Structures are given as structure tokens and as C-alpha cells.
């Protein structure tokens, strides 16, 4: 089975700290994603990556950045954490289908990181 591992299940940080959320997948997937999940808002896409060193902004990229130096690892960075970034963060991966078009047929999710910014 595909395994997507998020390094921390719970994380507590202070306002202004730089925060790194790590995600590793073991199935050689090309595509990786970071979502945040908030009650009543569902999942919102922060950033995604189609390949190593490639990144694309999602719907809510403000206040975040990402890094994809290796295919299996996709890091989400909060440059200066704020209280409104308290949330559940979910990482996901999917294989690329076809050589020309990116048909992401399904996502494999990690268990999530609950981040609290005080």
C-alpha cells in the first residue's frame, strides 16, 4: 500500500516562528499536495508540485512556501507563523498518468498534522 507519512501528528508553535511540516511518500509519485482543513471550510489547496523543484500555487498560498528537493519529500514552510494558521494540514500524493496531460486520478493522504500557533 502507498504510504504518505507526515512527520508530526501534533505541533505547537509560537507566533512569528518559522515552521516546517514534512511529508514523505514511498510510492515514487510525481504529484504532491498540501491542503489545510478547517471546520466548515473543507479542504483547501495551499500548494502542489508536479515534479522535483516544481511548485504551483493552490487556492490559499499566502503565508506559505514549499520545497521539493527530492521526489519523495514535499515540505510546507510557514515563514512566520500566525494564529490564523492554526489548522489541520494534510499532505497527499498521486501518480502522474500519461506523458502529456496530468490526470490525477486519486489522492493518497497522510494522517495530518494538527498545528496550533499560540
Amino acid at each position, binding site marked *: 500500500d502507498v504510504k*504518505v507519512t507526515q512527520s508530526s501528528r501534533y505541533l505547537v508553535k509560537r507566533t512569528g516562528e518559522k515552521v516546517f511540516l514534512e511529508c514523505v511518500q514511498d510510492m515514487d509519485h510525481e504529484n504532491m*499536495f498540501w*491542503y489545510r482543513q478547517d471546520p*466548515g*471550510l*473543507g*479542504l*483547501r*489547496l495551499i500548494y*502542489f508540485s508536479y515534479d522535483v523543484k516544481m511548485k*504551483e500555487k*493552490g487556492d490559499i498560498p499566502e503565508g506559505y512556501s514549499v520545497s521539493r528537493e527530492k521526489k519523495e519529500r514535499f515540505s510546507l514552510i510557514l515563514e512566520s507563523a500566525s494564529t490564523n494558521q492554526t489548522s489541520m494540514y*494534510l499532505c*497527499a500524493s498521486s501518480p502522474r498518468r500519461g506523458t502529456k*496531460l*496530468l*490526470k*490525477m*486520478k*486519486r*489522492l493518497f*493522504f*497522510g*494522517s*495530518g498534522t494538527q498545528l496550533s500557533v499560540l
Partner: protein
Amino acid sequence: AQSVTQPDIHITVSEGASLELRCNYSYGATPYLFWYVQSPGQGLQLLLKYFSGDTLVQGIKGFEAEFKRSQSSFNLRKPSVHWSDAAEYFCAVVRPMNRDDKIIFGKGTRLHILP
């Protein structure tokens, strides 16, 4: 803009009763449609998906969903729920054939089961 609507935030049913969770999408062509389930403290798990063909799709855990183009709906059903089905359910849609494919999620429906 493409969107997914789950009109029910919470649904409560008795164990053994039937279930239907609603999902509507707004998109011109036939999208790829999914239902995911999230149990407490867990990530999301794929229940089923629809790409083309038979509009009634079977998934895991006894769930099924029916794609109805005329109603732009993809409702999830189960004939008899179990207490372990208590979870949050997300409908999602992928816009195919574009370079910047994204998976768009609904806001979720939380299912509560009465004993």
C-alpha cells in the same frame, strides 16, 4: 468557477438505517468525481470514484454512488449503516484534460450514528 457543494453539514441516522449524502458539482463537461471518508484522527481514504461508463459505481465498505448528469449530482448511498461509518465524508471533483488539474473538495458532511 468550478465548485462542489455538499448541502448537509451534519447528518444523523440510526444504525441499520439507509443513508444518502448529497453532492452537487458545477462544471460543463463530465468531471472525474470522488467520495472520500475521514475517520477521526485519520487522513482521507478513497471510497469510490467515477470517470465514465456505468453511472452507478460501487465502492469499499458497502458504499455506492450514482452520477446523474441531468442533476449535476453524485450522491453517496449505503443501504444499512454501521456505527463504524461515523466519520466525515467529502465529495471531490477533478477537472480533467488541463495542465493545472486540481482536486476540489466540498466542505464535508459529518455523519453521526445513533445506536
